[in-house]
Protein backbone atom coordinates (compact mmCIF):
# COMPACT_ATOMS: atom_id res chain seq x y z
CA UNK A 1 0.00 0.00 0.00
CA UNK A 2 1.56 3.19 -1.11
CA UNK A 3 0.90 5.96 1.28
CA UNK A 4 -0.69 8.84 -0.42
CA UNK A 5 -1.41 12.16 1.08
CA UNK A 6 -4.26 13.98 -0.45
CA UNK A 7 -3.53 17.64 -0.66
CA UNK A 8 -6.63 19.36 0.51
CA UNK A 9 -5.25 22.71 1.41
CA UNK A 10 -7.94 25.08 2.28
CA UNK A 11 -8.60 27.62 -0.33
CA UNK A 12 -9.61 30.98 0.94
CA UNK A 13 -12.42 32.43 -1.01
CA UNK A 14 -12.96 36.11 -0.82
CA UNK A 15 -16.11 37.49 -2.27
CA UNK A 16 -15.39 40.83 -3.84
CA UNK A 17 -18.84 41.38 -5.17
CA UNK A 18 -21.62 39.49 -6.80
CA UNK A 19 -23.75 41.52 -9.07
CA UNK A 20 -27.36 40.58 -8.59
CA UNK A 21 -28.63 42.54 -11.54
CA UNK A 22 -30.69 40.69 -14.08
CA UNK A 23 -28.67 39.41 -16.95
CA UNK A 24 -29.36 38.29 -20.49
CA UNK A 25 -26.74 35.57 -20.42
CA UNK A 26 -27.99 32.24 -19.15
CA UNK A 27 -27.57 28.63 -20.13
CA UNK A 28 -30.34 26.02 -20.03
CA UNK A 29 -28.84 22.69 -19.03
CA UNK A 30 -32.04 20.68 -18.98
CA UNK A 31 -31.96 20.02 -22.73
CA UNK A 32 -29.24 18.81 -25.04
CA UNK A 33 -27.40 21.97 -25.86
CA UNK A 34 -26.72 22.17 -29.56
CA UNK A 35 -25.75 25.84 -29.43
CA UNK A 36 -23.09 26.11 -26.76
CA UNK A 37 -22.68 29.63 -25.39
CA UNK A 38 -19.76 31.49 -26.97
CA UNK A 39 -17.47 32.54 -24.14
CA UNK A 40 -14.07 34.22 -24.12
CA UNK A 41 -11.57 33.19 -21.44
CA UNK A 42 -8.90 35.86 -21.41
CA UNK A 43 -5.49 34.66 -20.15
CA UNK A 44 -5.18 35.74 -16.51
CA UNK A 45 -2.85 38.69 -16.23
CA UNK A 46 0.25 38.65 -14.00
CA UNK A 47 2.92 41.19 -13.15
CA UNK A 48 6.64 40.49 -13.77
CA UNK A 49 7.44 39.71 -10.15
CA UNK A 50 4.64 37.16 -9.88
CA UNK A 51 5.53 35.65 -13.22
CA UNK A 52 9.14 35.04 -12.13
CA UNK A 53 8.07 33.78 -8.71
CA UNK A 54 5.63 31.15 -10.05
CA UNK A 55 7.99 30.11 -12.82
CA UNK A 56 10.59 29.30 -10.17
CA UNK A 57 8.10 27.77 -7.73
CA UNK A 58 6.08 25.61 -10.14
CA UNK A 59 8.39 25.34 -13.14
CA UNK A 60 5.52 26.55 -15.26
CA UNK A 61 5.76 29.54 -17.56
CA UNK A 62 2.86 31.97 -17.53
CA UNK A 63 0.70 30.41 -14.82
CA UNK A 64 -2.12 32.86 -15.58
CA UNK A 65 -2.43 31.53 -19.09
CA UNK A 66 -2.29 27.92 -17.81
CA UNK A 67 -5.13 28.53 -15.35
CA UNK A 68 -7.23 30.03 -18.12
CA UNK A 69 -6.60 26.87 -20.18
CA UNK A 70 -7.92 24.72 -17.31
CA UNK A 71 -11.09 26.83 -17.23
CA UNK A 72 -11.42 26.79 -20.98
CA UNK A 73 -11.05 23.00 -21.17
CA UNK A 74 -13.63 22.47 -18.40
CA UNK A 75 -16.13 24.74 -20.13
CA UNK A 76 -15.60 23.00 -23.44
CA UNK A 77 -15.96 19.50 -21.93
CA UNK A 78 -19.26 20.50 -20.34
CA UNK A 79 -20.71 20.83 -23.82
CA UNK A 80 -22.61 23.95 -22.73
CA UNK A 81 -19.96 26.47 -23.67
CA UNK A 82 -17.92 27.24 -26.72
CA UNK A 83 -14.65 28.88 -25.63
CA UNK A 84 -13.45 31.16 -28.41
CA UNK A 85 -9.96 31.07 -29.86
CA UNK A 86 -7.59 33.41 -28.05
CA UNK A 87 -6.09 34.46 -31.39
CA UNK A 88 -9.19 36.53 -32.04
CA UNK A 89 -8.95 38.48 -28.77
CA UNK A 90 -8.35 42.17 -29.34
CA UNK A 91 -7.94 43.42 -25.82
CA UNK A 92 -4.92 42.80 -23.59
CA UNK A 93 -5.60 40.67 -20.45
CA UNK A 94 -4.65 43.38 -17.93
CA UNK A 95 -6.83 46.07 -19.48
CA UNK A 96 -9.74 43.69 -20.06
CA UNK A 97 -9.69 42.71 -16.40
CA UNK A 98 -10.04 46.33 -15.31
CA UNK A 99 -12.74 47.30 -17.75
CA UNK A 100 -13.47 45.36 -20.89
CA UNK A 101 -14.20 47.21 -24.12
CA UNK A 102 -17.40 45.28 -24.70
CA UNK A 103 -17.62 46.16 -28.39
CA UNK A 104 -14.29 44.31 -28.95
CA UNK A 105 -15.76 41.15 -27.40
CA UNK A 106 -19.12 41.51 -29.17
CA UNK A 107 -17.21 41.72 -32.42
CA UNK A 108 -15.86 38.19 -31.98
CA UNK A 109 -19.40 37.01 -31.04
CA UNK A 110 -18.56 36.38 -27.42
CA UNK A 111 -21.54 36.55 -25.05
CA UNK A 112 -19.63 36.10 -21.81
CA UNK A 113 -16.08 36.97 -20.83
CA UNK A 114 -13.81 35.75 -18.06
CA UNK A 115 -10.88 37.94 -17.07
CA UNK A 116 -8.47 37.66 -14.18
CA UNK A 117 -5.23 38.46 -12.46
CA UNK A 118 -2.65 36.29 -10.73
CA UNK A 119 -0.32 37.66 -8.07
CA UNK A 120 2.23 36.21 -5.69
CA UNK A 121 1.35 37.36 -2.17
CA UNK A 122 3.52 36.09 0.71
CA UNK A 123 4.60 33.12 -1.43
CA UNK A 124 0.96 32.27 -1.99
CA UNK A 125 -1.04 32.24 -5.15
CA UNK A 126 -3.71 34.91 -5.30
CA UNK A 127 -6.17 34.72 -8.16
CA UNK A 128 -8.86 37.27 -8.90
CA UNK A 129 -11.38 36.74 -11.63
CA UNK A 130 -14.41 38.47 -13.09
CA UNK A 131 -17.23 37.18 -15.22
CA UNK A 132 -18.72 39.73 -17.61
CA UNK A 133 -21.98 39.78 -19.51
CA UNK A 134 -20.77 41.09 -22.85
CA UNK A 135 -24.16 41.94 -24.36
CA UNK A 136 -25.47 43.73 -21.29
CA UNK A 137 -22.04 45.28 -20.76
CA UNK A 138 -21.77 44.56 -17.05
CA UNK A 139 -19.98 42.49 -14.45
CA UNK A 140 -21.82 39.35 -13.26
CA UNK A 141 -19.41 37.94 -10.72
CA UNK A 142 -16.08 38.81 -9.12
CA UNK A 143 -14.13 36.59 -6.73
CA UNK A 144 -10.62 36.17 -5.37
CA UNK A 145 -8.86 33.06 -4.06
CA UNK A 146 -5.65 32.61 -2.12
CA UNK A 147 -3.96 29.23 -1.84
CA UNK A 148 -0.61 27.44 -2.06
CA UNK A 149 0.85 27.70 -5.57
CA UNK A 150 0.70 23.93 -6.18
CA UNK A 151 -3.10 24.18 -6.02
CA UNK A 152 -3.23 26.21 -9.23
CA UNK A 153 -5.25 23.67 -11.21
CA UNK A 154 -7.85 23.54 -8.45
CA UNK A 155 -8.22 27.30 -8.69
CA UNK A 156 -9.08 26.82 -12.36
CA UNK A 157 -11.68 24.21 -11.41
CA UNK A 158 -13.22 26.37 -8.69
CA UNK A 159 -13.47 29.32 -11.06
CA UNK A 160 -15.21 27.06 -13.59
CA UNK A 161 -17.68 25.92 -10.90
CA UNK A 162 -18.49 29.54 -10.03
CA UNK A 163 -18.97 30.51 -13.67
CA UNK A 164 -21.05 27.40 -14.36
CA UNK A 165 -23.26 28.11 -11.35
CA UNK A 166 -23.70 31.78 -12.25
CA UNK A 167 -24.66 31.01 -15.84
CA UNK A 168 -26.71 27.81 -15.42
CA UNK A 169 -28.17 28.34 -11.96
CA UNK A 170 -26.91 24.91 -10.85
CA UNK A 171 -23.82 23.84 -8.92
CA UNK A 172 -20.85 22.76 -10.98
CA UNK A 173 -18.83 19.54 -10.84
CA UNK A 174 -15.33 20.66 -11.83
CA UNK A 175 -13.53 20.83 -8.48
CA UNK A 176 -13.95 17.07 -8.06
CA UNK A 177 -11.94 13.89 -8.35
CA UNK A 178 -12.55 10.49 -9.89
CA UNK A 179 -11.44 7.31 -8.19
CA UNK A 180 -11.16 4.36 -10.57
CA UNK A 181 -9.36 1.12 -11.31
CA UNK A 182 -6.30 1.46 -13.51
CA UNK A 183 -5.83 -1.57 -15.79
CA UNK A 184 -2.76 -2.93 -17.54
CA UNK A 185 -1.61 -6.15 -19.15
CA UNK A 186 -3.33 -8.96 -21.04
CA UNK A 187 -6.96 -9.77 -20.33
CA UNK A 188 -6.14 -13.12 -18.75
CA UNK A 189 -3.72 -11.58 -16.22
CA UNK A 190 -4.96 -8.04 -15.91
CA UNK A 191 -3.11 -5.94 -13.33
CA UNK A 192 -5.44 -3.58 -11.49
CA UNK A 193 -4.62 -0.66 -9.20
CA UNK A 194 -6.69 1.92 -7.41
CA UNK A 195 -6.10 5.34 -8.93
CA UNK A 196 -7.37 8.82 -8.19
CA UNK A 197 -7.27 11.85 -10.47
CA UNK A 198 -8.81 15.24 -10.99
CA UNK A 199 -12.05 15.22 -12.94
CA UNK A 200 -10.18 16.43 -16.06
CA UNK A 201 -7.67 13.56 -15.97
CA UNK A 202 -4.76 15.44 -14.36
CA UNK A 203 -2.84 14.74 -11.12
CA UNK A 204 -3.18 10.95 -11.25
CA UNK A 205 -2.03 9.11 -8.13
CA UNK A 206 -1.96 5.35 -7.63
CA UNK A 207 -3.18 4.11 -4.27
CA UNK A 208 -2.25 0.43 -4.59
CA UNK A 209 0.69 -1.29 -6.27
CA UNK A 210 -1.15 -3.90 -8.30
CA UNK A 211 -0.05 -6.91 -6.24
CA UNK A 212 -3.64 -7.92 -5.68
CA UNK A 213 -6.79 -7.55 -7.69
CA UNK A 214 -8.87 -4.52 -6.67
CA UNK A 215 -12.34 -3.55 -7.89
CA UNK A 216 -15.21 -1.06 -7.49
CA UNK A 217 -13.76 1.81 -5.37
CA UNK A 218 -16.28 4.36 -4.03
CA UNK A 219 -15.79 7.62 -2.12
CA UNK A 220 -17.42 8.46 1.19
CA UNK A 221 -19.39 11.75 1.24
CA UNK A 222 -16.38 13.78 2.43
CA UNK A 223 -14.00 12.17 -0.11
CA UNK A 224 -11.50 11.18 2.62
CA UNK A 225 -12.31 7.47 2.60
CA UNK A 226 -12.73 4.88 -0.08
CA UNK A 227 -14.44 1.52 0.13
CA UNK A 228 -13.50 -1.13 -2.42
CA UNK A 229 -13.07 -4.85 -3.05
CA UNK A 230 -9.58 -6.33 -2.70
CA UNK A 231 -8.36 -9.89 -3.28
CA UNK A 232 -5.62 -9.42 -0.68
CA UNK A 233 -4.31 -12.92 0.28
CA UNK A 234 -6.82 -14.33 -2.19
CA UNK A 235 -9.71 -13.48 0.10
CA UNK A 236 -12.12 -11.18 -1.72
CA UNK A 237 -13.30 -8.74 0.94
CA UNK A 238 -14.58 -5.20 1.20
CA UNK A 239 -11.93 -2.81 2.50
CA UNK A 240 -11.97 0.68 3.87
CA UNK A 241 -9.08 2.98 2.99
CA UNK A 242 -8.26 6.32 4.56
CA UNK A 243 -6.77 8.27 1.65
CA UNK A 244 -4.84 10.67 3.86
CA UNK A 245 -3.18 8.15 6.19
CA UNK A 246 -3.08 5.21 3.79
CA UNK A 247 -4.48 2.98 6.54
CA UNK A 248 -6.74 0.23 5.28
CA UNK A 249 -8.83 -2.37 7.03
CA UNK A 250 -11.25 -5.16 6.23
CA UNK A 251 -14.89 -4.24 6.70
CA UNK A 252 -16.58 -6.67 9.09
CA UNK A 253 -15.77 -10.26 9.93
CA UNK A 254 -17.58 -12.25 7.25
CA UNK A 255 -16.84 -15.93 6.58
CA UNK A 256 -16.94 -15.44 2.81
CA UNK A 257 -16.76 -12.94 -0.03
CA UNK A 258 -18.02 -9.43 0.58
CA UNK A 259 -18.37 -7.17 -2.46
CA UNK A 260 -20.25 -4.30 -4.15
CA UNK A 261 -19.65 -1.77 -1.33
CA UNK A 262 -20.95 1.80 -1.10
CA UNK A 263 -21.23 4.34 1.68
CA UNK A 264 -24.51 5.48 3.15
CA UNK A 265 -25.23 9.18 2.41
CA UNK A 266 -24.23 10.18 5.98
CA UNK A 267 -20.98 8.23 5.58
CA UNK A 268 -21.61 6.20 8.74
CA UNK A 269 -22.34 2.84 7.16
CA UNK A 270 -21.05 0.67 4.37
CA UNK A 271 -23.65 -1.27 2.44
CA UNK A 272 -22.45 -4.33 0.51
CA UNK A 273 -23.17 -7.89 -0.57
CA UNK A 274 -22.05 -10.95 1.35
CA UNK A 275 -21.90 -14.23 -0.58
CA UNK A 276 -22.14 -17.57 1.18
CA UNK A 277 -23.05 -21.03 -0.08
CA UNK A 278 -24.02 -19.70 -3.49
CA UNK A 279 -26.31 -16.98 -2.18
CA UNK A 280 -25.59 -13.23 -2.06
CA UNK A 281 -27.54 -10.96 0.28
CA UNK A 282 -27.20 -7.30 1.25
CA UNK A 283 -25.76 -6.22 4.59
CA UNK A 284 -24.69 -2.99 6.23
CA UNK A 285 -21.93 -2.35 8.71
CA UNK A 286 -21.76 0.69 10.95
CA UNK A 287 -18.20 1.98 10.66
CA UNK A 288 -18.04 3.28 14.21
CA UNK A 289 -19.67 0.57 16.32
CA UNK A 290 -19.08 -2.29 13.81
CA UNK A 291 -22.65 -3.51 14.11
CA UNK A 292 -23.60 -5.63 11.11
CA UNK A 293 -27.19 -5.71 9.92
CA UNK A 294 -28.72 -8.03 7.38
CA UNK A 295 -30.94 -6.13 4.93
CA UNK A 296 -32.11 -8.79 2.44
CA UNK A 297 -32.73 -12.49 3.02
CA UNK A 298 -33.58 -14.21 -0.24
CA UNK A 299 -32.16 -17.26 -2.05
CA UNK A 300 -31.46 -15.13 -5.15
CA UNK A 301 -28.46 -12.93 -5.91
CA UNK A 302 -28.95 -9.52 -4.27
CA UNK A 303 -26.16 -7.06 -5.05
CA UNK A 304 -25.11 -3.56 -6.22
CA UNK A 305 -26.96 -1.69 -3.44
CA UNK A 306 -27.14 2.13 -3.54
CA UNK A 307 -28.87 4.43 -1.05
CA UNK A 308 -31.24 7.27 -1.90
CA UNK A 309 -29.65 10.63 -0.93
CA UNK A 310 -31.96 10.93 2.12
CA UNK A 311 -30.90 7.43 3.26
CA UNK A 312 -34.50 6.22 3.48
CA UNK A 313 -34.42 3.84 0.51
CA UNK A 314 -32.05 1.43 -1.19
CA UNK A 315 -32.02 0.43 -4.84
CA UNK A 316 -30.35 -2.88 -5.68
CA UNK A 317 -29.90 -5.57 -8.27
CA UNK A 318 -31.55 -8.98 -7.85
CA UNK A 319 -32.31 -12.00 -10.02
CA UNK A 320 -35.21 -13.14 -7.83
CA UNK A 321 -37.52 -12.90 -10.84
CA UNK A 322 -35.22 -15.28 -12.73
CA UNK A 323 -33.07 -12.57 -14.30
CA UNK A 324 -31.16 -9.47 -13.21
CA UNK A 325 -33.63 -6.67 -12.48
CA UNK A 326 -33.66 -3.46 -10.43
CA UNK A 327 -35.51 -3.21 -7.13
CA UNK A 328 -36.18 -0.52 -4.53
CA UNK A 329 -36.81 -1.16 -0.83
CA UNK A 330 -36.91 0.76 2.41
CA UNK A 331 -33.51 1.00 4.06
CA UNK A 332 -34.53 -1.60 6.66
CA UNK A 333 -35.15 -4.11 3.86
CA UNK A 334 -38.96 -3.93 3.90
CA UNK A 335 -41.31 -3.06 1.01
CA UNK A 336 -39.21 -4.60 -1.78
CA UNK A 337 -40.53 -3.53 -5.17
CA UNK A 338 -39.26 -4.35 -8.63
CA UNK A 339 -38.97 -1.20 -10.76
CA UNK A 340 -37.39 -2.38 -14.05
CA UNK A 341 -39.85 -3.95 -16.45
CA UNK A 342 -38.38 -3.20 -19.88
CA UNK A 343 -36.95 -5.85 -22.19
CA UNK A 344 -33.53 -7.20 -21.28
CA UNK A 345 -31.44 -7.42 -18.12
CA UNK A 346 -30.79 -4.53 -15.75
CA UNK A 347 -27.87 -4.03 -13.39
CA UNK A 348 -25.76 -1.54 -11.35
CA UNK A 349 -28.57 0.79 -10.19
CA UNK A 350 -27.26 4.01 -8.64
CA UNK A 351 -29.40 6.71 -7.10
CA UNK A 352 -28.98 10.27 -8.39
CA UNK A 353 -27.66 12.83 -5.86
CA UNK A 354 -30.79 14.88 -6.67
CA UNK A 355 -32.92 11.90 -5.62
CA UNK A 356 -35.21 11.84 -8.63
CA UNK A 357 -33.56 9.28 -10.91
CA UNK A 358 -31.79 5.92 -10.87
CA UNK A 359 -29.04 5.32 -13.43
CA UNK A 360 -28.40 1.75 -14.56
CA UNK A 361 -26.73 -0.60 -17.03
CA UNK A 362 -28.99 -2.53 -19.37
CA UNK A 363 -28.18 -5.57 -21.50
CA UNK A 364 -30.50 -6.26 -24.39
CA UNK A 365 -29.90 -8.34 -27.51
CA UNK A 366 -26.15 -8.34 -27.07
CA UNK A 367 -25.83 -4.56 -26.58
CA UNK A 368 -25.12 -2.64 -23.40
CA UNK A 369 -26.84 0.63 -22.51
CA UNK A 370 -26.44 3.27 -19.86
CA UNK A 371 -29.82 4.68 -18.95
CA UNK A 372 -31.90 6.41 -16.31
CA UNK A 373 -35.38 5.84 -14.93
CA UNK A 374 -37.45 7.53 -12.30
CA UNK A 375 -37.35 5.93 -8.87
CA UNK A 376 -40.74 4.29 -9.49
CA UNK A 377 -39.30 2.71 -12.65
CA UNK A 378 -41.23 4.93 -15.04
CA UNK A 379 -39.77 7.18 -17.71
CA UNK A 380 -36.89 4.92 -18.74
CA UNK A 381 -34.43 6.70 -21.06
CA UNK A 382 -31.41 5.04 -22.64
CA UNK A 383 -28.57 7.53 -23.04
CA UNK A 384 -25.96 5.50 -24.87
CA UNK A 385 -25.61 2.12 -26.61
CA UNK A 386 -22.36 0.21 -27.09
CA UNK A 387 -20.68 -3.18 -27.36
CA UNK A 388 -19.86 -3.14 -23.64
CA UNK A 389 -20.31 -0.46 -21.00
CA UNK A 390 -21.48 -0.42 -17.41
CA UNK A 391 -21.29 1.04 -13.91
CA UNK A 392 -22.50 4.64 -14.17
CA UNK A 393 -21.54 7.08 -11.39
CA UNK A 394 -23.17 10.51 -10.97
CA UNK A 395 -21.45 13.88 -11.01
CA UNK A 396 -22.34 15.65 -7.74
CA UNK A 397 -24.85 17.94 -9.48
CA UNK A 398 -26.69 14.97 -10.99
CA UNK A 399 -26.29 16.26 -14.57
CA UNK A 400 -23.48 14.05 -15.87
CA UNK A 401 -22.67 10.34 -15.62
CA UNK A 402 -19.27 8.68 -15.83
CA UNK A 403 -18.98 4.97 -16.70
CA UNK A 404 -16.55 2.57 -18.35
CA UNK A 405 -16.60 1.05 -21.79
CA UNK A 406 -14.75 -1.96 -23.17
CA UNK A 407 -13.98 -2.75 -26.80
CA UNK A 408 -14.35 -6.13 -28.43
CA UNK A 409 -11.24 -8.30 -28.77
CA UNK A 410 -10.47 -10.28 -31.89
CA UNK A 411 -10.20 -14.08 -31.71
CA UNK A 412 -6.59 -13.79 -30.53
CA UNK A 413 -7.73 -11.54 -27.71
CA UNK A 414 -6.12 -8.43 -29.24
CA UNK A 415 -7.71 -5.01 -29.49
CA UNK A 416 -9.20 -4.96 -26.02
CA UNK A 417 -9.36 -1.60 -24.26
CA UNK A 418 -11.21 -0.27 -21.23
CA UNK A 419 -11.78 3.48 -20.96
CA UNK A 420 -13.78 5.95 -18.94
CA UNK A 421 -16.53 7.91 -20.68
CA UNK A 422 -18.95 10.59 -19.61
CA UNK A 423 -22.35 11.59 -20.93
CA UNK A 424 -24.88 14.25 -20.02
CA UNK A 425 -28.25 13.29 -18.61
CA UNK A 426 -29.67 14.71 -21.83
CA UNK A 427 -27.93 11.94 -23.80
CA UNK A 428 -25.72 14.53 -25.50
CA UNK A 429 -22.06 15.37 -25.02
CA UNK A 430 -20.58 11.88 -24.87
CA UNK A 431 -16.82 12.11 -24.25
CA UNK A 432 -13.90 9.87 -23.42
CA UNK A 433 -12.25 10.87 -20.13
CA UNK A 434 -8.46 10.93 -20.31
CA UNK A 435 -6.63 8.41 -18.13
CA UNK A 436 -2.95 7.44 -18.12
CA UNK A 437 -3.77 3.75 -18.45
CA UNK A 438 -6.82 1.70 -19.32
CA UNK A 439 -9.50 2.31 -16.72
CA UNK A 440 -12.74 0.98 -15.25
CA UNK A 441 -15.11 1.28 -12.27
CA UNK A 442 -15.10 5.10 -11.98
CA UNK A 443 -16.64 6.82 -8.98
CA UNK A 444 -17.18 10.58 -8.90
CA UNK A 445 -16.40 12.50 -5.70
CA UNK A 446 -18.58 15.24 -4.30
CA UNK A 447 -17.45 18.86 -4.68
CA UNK A 448 -14.16 19.31 -2.82
CA UNK A 449 -14.92 22.93 -1.94
CA UNK A 450 -18.35 24.30 -1.34
Amino acid at each position, binding site marked *: MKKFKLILNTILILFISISKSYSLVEVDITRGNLNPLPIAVSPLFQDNYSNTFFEKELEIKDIGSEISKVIENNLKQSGLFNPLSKDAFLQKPDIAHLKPRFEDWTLIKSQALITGKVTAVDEKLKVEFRLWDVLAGREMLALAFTTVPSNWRRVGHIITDKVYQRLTGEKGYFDTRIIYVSEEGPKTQRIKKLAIMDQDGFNTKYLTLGNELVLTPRFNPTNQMVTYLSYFRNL*PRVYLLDIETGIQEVVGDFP*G*MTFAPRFSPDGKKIIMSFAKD*GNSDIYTMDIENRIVERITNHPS*IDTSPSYSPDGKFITF*NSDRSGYQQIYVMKSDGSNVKRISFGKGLYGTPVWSPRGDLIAFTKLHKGKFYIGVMRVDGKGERLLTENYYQEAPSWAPNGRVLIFYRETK*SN*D*KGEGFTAKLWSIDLTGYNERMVNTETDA*SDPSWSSLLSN
Partner: protein
Amino acid sequence: MNLSKILKNTFLVILLSMVVSACATKKTATIDSQIQGDVYTGTDTVEYLAKGVPDRVFFATNETILTTMSRDTLRKQAAWLRENPSVNVVLEGHADERGTREYNLALGERRANAAKDYLMTYGVSADRISVISYGKERPVDSGSNPLSWSKNRRSVTVKAN
Protein backbone atom coordinates in the same frame (compact mmCIF):
# COMPACT_ATOMS: atom_id res chain seq x y z
CA MET B 1 -20.59 -4.43 -71.27
CA ASN B 2 -21.43 -7.43 -73.49
CA LEU B 3 -23.45 -10.44 -72.52
CA SER B 4 -20.55 -12.82 -72.13
CA LYS B 5 -18.86 -10.44 -69.73
CA ILE B 6 -22.04 -10.15 -67.65
CA LEU B 7 -22.39 -13.91 -67.57
CA LYS B 8 -18.77 -14.27 -66.60
CA ASN B 9 -19.21 -11.81 -63.75
CA THR B 10 -22.36 -13.51 -62.56
CA PHE B 11 -20.56 -16.81 -62.58
CA LEU B 12 -17.74 -15.34 -60.54
CA VAL B 13 -20.18 -13.97 -58.00
CA ILE B 14 -21.87 -17.36 -57.67
CA LEU B 15 -18.52 -19.07 -57.30
CA LEU B 16 -17.44 -16.57 -54.64
CA SER B 17 -20.62 -16.95 -52.65
CA MET B 18 -20.17 -20.72 -52.72
CA VAL B 19 -16.69 -20.37 -51.29
CA VAL B 20 -17.96 -18.01 -48.59
CA SER B 21 -20.82 -20.27 -47.57
CA ALA B 22 -18.50 -23.26 -47.49
CA CYS B 23 -16.25 -21.43 -45.01
CA ALA B 24 -19.24 -20.41 -42.91
CA THR B 25 -20.48 -23.98 -42.72
CA LYS B 26 -17.09 -25.23 -41.69
CA LYS B 27 -16.75 -22.67 -38.92
CA THR B 28 -20.21 -23.34 -37.51
CA ALA B 29 -19.41 -27.03 -37.49
CA THR B 30 -16.30 -26.55 -35.32
CA ILE B 31 -18.15 -24.32 -32.84
CA ASP B 32 -21.10 -26.71 -32.73
CA SER B 33 -18.86 -29.60 -31.85
CA GLN B 34 -17.45 -27.63 -28.92
CA ILE B 35 -20.62 -25.99 -27.59
CA GLN B 36 -23.83 -27.82 -26.81
CA GLY B 37 -26.82 -25.88 -25.58
CA ASP B 38 -24.58 -22.86 -24.84
CA VAL B 39 -22.20 -24.98 -22.71
CA TYR B 40 -18.59 -25.62 -23.70
CA THR B 41 -17.91 -29.30 -24.27
CA GLY B 42 -14.40 -29.13 -25.76
CA THR B 43 -11.08 -29.85 -24.08
CA ASP B 44 -9.00 -26.83 -25.18
CA THR B 45 -8.43 -25.28 -21.79
CA VAL B 46 -9.05 -28.31 -19.60
CA GLU B 47 -6.32 -29.53 -17.29
CA TYR B 48 -6.30 -32.74 -15.29
CA LEU B 49 -6.14 -33.36 -11.54
CA ALA B 50 -5.09 -36.92 -12.35
CA LYS B 51 -5.30 -39.16 -15.38
CA GLY B 52 -8.89 -39.08 -16.61
CA VAL B 53 -9.99 -36.49 -14.02
CA PRO B 54 -10.74 -33.14 -15.73
CA ASP B 55 -10.31 -30.09 -13.48
CA ARG B 56 -13.26 -27.97 -14.68
CA VAL B 57 -16.93 -27.81 -15.57
CA PHE B 58 -18.69 -25.31 -17.82
CA PHE B 59 -21.97 -23.41 -17.67
CA ALA B 60 -24.54 -21.84 -19.96
CA THR B 61 -24.90 -18.02 -20.04
CA ASN B 62 -26.31 -16.70 -16.75
CA GLU B 63 -26.82 -20.30 -15.54
CA THR B 64 -25.45 -22.31 -12.64
CA ILE B 65 -27.04 -25.66 -13.56
CA LEU B 66 -24.65 -28.60 -13.91
CA THR B 67 -24.98 -30.48 -17.20
CA THR B 68 -24.81 -34.28 -17.49
CA MET B 69 -21.21 -33.92 -18.65
CA SER B 70 -20.36 -31.62 -15.72
CA ARG B 71 -21.86 -34.05 -13.23
CA ASP B 72 -19.83 -36.84 -14.77
CA THR B 73 -16.65 -34.74 -14.40
CA LEU B 74 -17.48 -33.90 -10.78
CA ARG B 75 -18.15 -37.56 -9.92
CA LYS B 76 -14.67 -38.36 -11.25
CA GLN B 77 -13.24 -35.55 -9.12
CA ALA B 78 -15.14 -36.80 -6.06
CA ALA B 79 -13.87 -40.36 -6.56
CA TRP B 80 -10.33 -39.07 -6.92
CA LEU B 81 -10.67 -36.89 -3.83
CA ARG B 82 -11.98 -39.84 -1.80
CA GLU B 83 -8.92 -41.81 -2.88
CA ASN B 84 -6.66 -38.93 -1.93
CA PRO B 85 -7.99 -37.79 1.45
CA SER B 86 -5.01 -35.54 2.17
CA VAL B 87 -5.79 -33.26 -0.79
CA ASN B 88 -7.89 -30.15 -0.22
CA VAL B 89 -9.28 -28.14 -3.10
CA VAL B 90 -10.33 -24.62 -4.00
CA LEU B 91 -13.24 -24.27 -6.40
CA GLU B 92 -12.75 -21.15 -8.52
CA GLY B 93 -15.97 -19.84 -10.04
CA HIS B 94 -15.88 -17.64 -13.14
CA ALA B 95 -18.20 -15.74 -15.46
CA ASP B 96 -17.80 -14.46 -19.01
CA GLU B 97 -17.20 -10.78 -19.85
CA ARG B 98 -20.77 -10.08 -21.01
CA GLY B 99 -22.20 -9.15 -17.63
CA THR B 100 -21.93 -6.44 -15.01
CA ARG B 101 -18.94 -6.88 -12.72
CA GLU B 102 -20.73 -7.13 -9.37
CA TYR B 103 -23.42 -9.52 -10.55
CA ASN B 104 -20.73 -11.69 -12.13
CA LEU B 105 -18.90 -11.94 -8.80
CA ALA B 106 -22.08 -13.36 -7.27
CA LEU B 107 -22.64 -15.62 -10.29
CA GLY B 108 -19.11 -17.05 -10.06
CA GLU B 109 -19.65 -17.76 -6.39
CA ARG B 110 -22.91 -19.51 -7.16
CA ARG B 111 -21.27 -21.65 -9.88
CA ALA B 112 -18.41 -22.75 -7.64
CA ASN B 113 -20.95 -23.65 -4.94
CA ALA B 114 -23.01 -25.68 -7.40
CA ALA B 115 -19.86 -27.75 -8.01
CA LYS B 116 -19.09 -27.88 -4.28
CA ASP B 117 -22.57 -29.16 -3.44
CA TYR B 118 -22.21 -31.91 -6.01
CA LEU B 119 -18.80 -32.99 -4.68
CA MET B 120 -20.28 -33.11 -1.18
CA THR B 121 -23.17 -35.28 -2.40
CA TYR B 122 -20.51 -37.72 -3.60
CA GLY B 123 -18.78 -37.97 -0.30
CA VAL B 124 -16.23 -35.14 -0.19
CA SER B 125 -16.43 -33.36 3.14
CA ALA B 126 -17.13 -29.63 3.15
CA ASP B 127 -14.02 -28.80 5.17
CA ARG B 128 -11.81 -30.01 2.30
CA ILE B 129 -13.40 -27.57 -0.14
CA SER B 130 -13.09 -23.82 -0.21
CA VAL B 131 -14.71 -21.58 -2.76
CA ILE B 132 -13.59 -18.35 -4.43
CA SER B 133 -15.28 -16.30 -7.13
CA TYR B 134 -13.30 -14.31 -9.67
CA GLY B 135 -16.37 -13.07 -11.53
CA LYS B 136 -15.19 -12.02 -14.98
CA GLU B 137 -11.73 -10.98 -13.75
CA ARG B 138 -9.72 -14.04 -14.83
CA PRO B 139 -10.82 -15.26 -18.25
CA VAL B 140 -8.89 -18.24 -19.62
CA ASP B 141 -9.62 -17.21 -23.21
CA SER B 142 -9.34 -13.53 -24.06
CA GLY B 143 -11.40 -13.57 -27.26
CA SER B 144 -14.74 -11.76 -27.56
CA ASN B 145 -16.83 -14.45 -29.23
CA PRO B 146 -19.32 -17.12 -28.13
CA LEU B 147 -16.69 -19.88 -28.04
CA SER B 148 -14.29 -17.84 -25.88
CA TRP B 149 -17.11 -16.84 -23.55
CA SER B 150 -18.23 -20.48 -23.17
CA LYS B 151 -14.71 -21.49 -22.05
CA ASN B 152 -14.72 -18.72 -19.47
CA ARG B 153 -18.04 -19.67 -17.82
CA ARG B 154 -16.49 -22.28 -15.56
CA SER B 155 -15.75 -23.69 -12.15
CA VAL B 156 -12.21 -24.97 -11.81
CA THR B 157 -11.11 -27.38 -9.09
CA VAL B 158 -7.60 -26.51 -7.97
CA LYS B 159 -5.44 -28.40 -5.47
CA ALA B 160 -4.96 -26.23 -2.41
CA ASN B 161 -2.04 -28.11 -0.88
